[in-house]
């Protein structure tokens, strides 16, 4: 299995500021994924991050707004730029050890933008 540690667990930030969310895996993984979940809603895939390459973003998510770094096989950061109240949600990182294998999620980062 893969354990994914996210930091911070929760944060409150002012509109217009930026927030960085870290995800650390306890073993090397090829792909890391970032998801957004609004209150009482499903999870939405934001982007896929592979080591040493630019993240691939899903429709509705952009590099300028949500830059993602993946400097090595155990680490990724998601930044929320120019945060707005509409960005208030829970952000999860996720990964798996094998393709089509069990998928693991971090505990999430609850972001509130005021």
């Amino acid at each position: 299995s893969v354990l994914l540690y996210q930091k911070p667990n929760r944060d409150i930030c002012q509109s217009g500021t930026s927030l960085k969310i870290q995800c650390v895996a306890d073993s090397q993984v090829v792909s890391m994924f970032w998801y957004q979940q609004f209150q009482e809603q499903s999870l939405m895939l934001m982007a896929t991050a592979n080591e040493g390459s630019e993240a691939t973003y899903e429709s509705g998510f952009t590099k300028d707004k949500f830059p993602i770094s993946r400097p090595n096989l155990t680490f990724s950061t998601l930044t929320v730029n120019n945060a707005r109240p509409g960005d208030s949600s829970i952000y999860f990182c996720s990964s798996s050890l094998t393709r089509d294998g069990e998928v693991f999620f971090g505990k999430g980062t609850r972001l509130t933008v005021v």
Partner: protein
Amino acid sequence: SQWGEENLQALSIQEGEDVTMNCSYKTYTTVVQWYRQKSGKGPAQLILIRSNEREKRSGRLRATLDTSSQSSSLSITGTLATDTAVYFCATDNYAQGLTFGLGTRVSVFP
């Protein structure tokens, strides 16, 4: 959307009862996964069922997959209060991340 409108639902049942939740998907997938998310936690994978499998069991859980109708179901037998959670189905886009269904909120009362 990848998912049909019938995914969103909430179910309230008594402990000991069985429950089945369904989802349907619109585009081809090789894998359907079922997740449970408890309040304040991240999703936890329950069952992964591949396109060449019609049924998969794990303890009190049973998942089915019908590729011809592009639908899947998850059943829980003998529910416990600890089964209270939101259950999601998800398709795996060739290891390019998951597309989640809308989810089913299951509340099990003692």
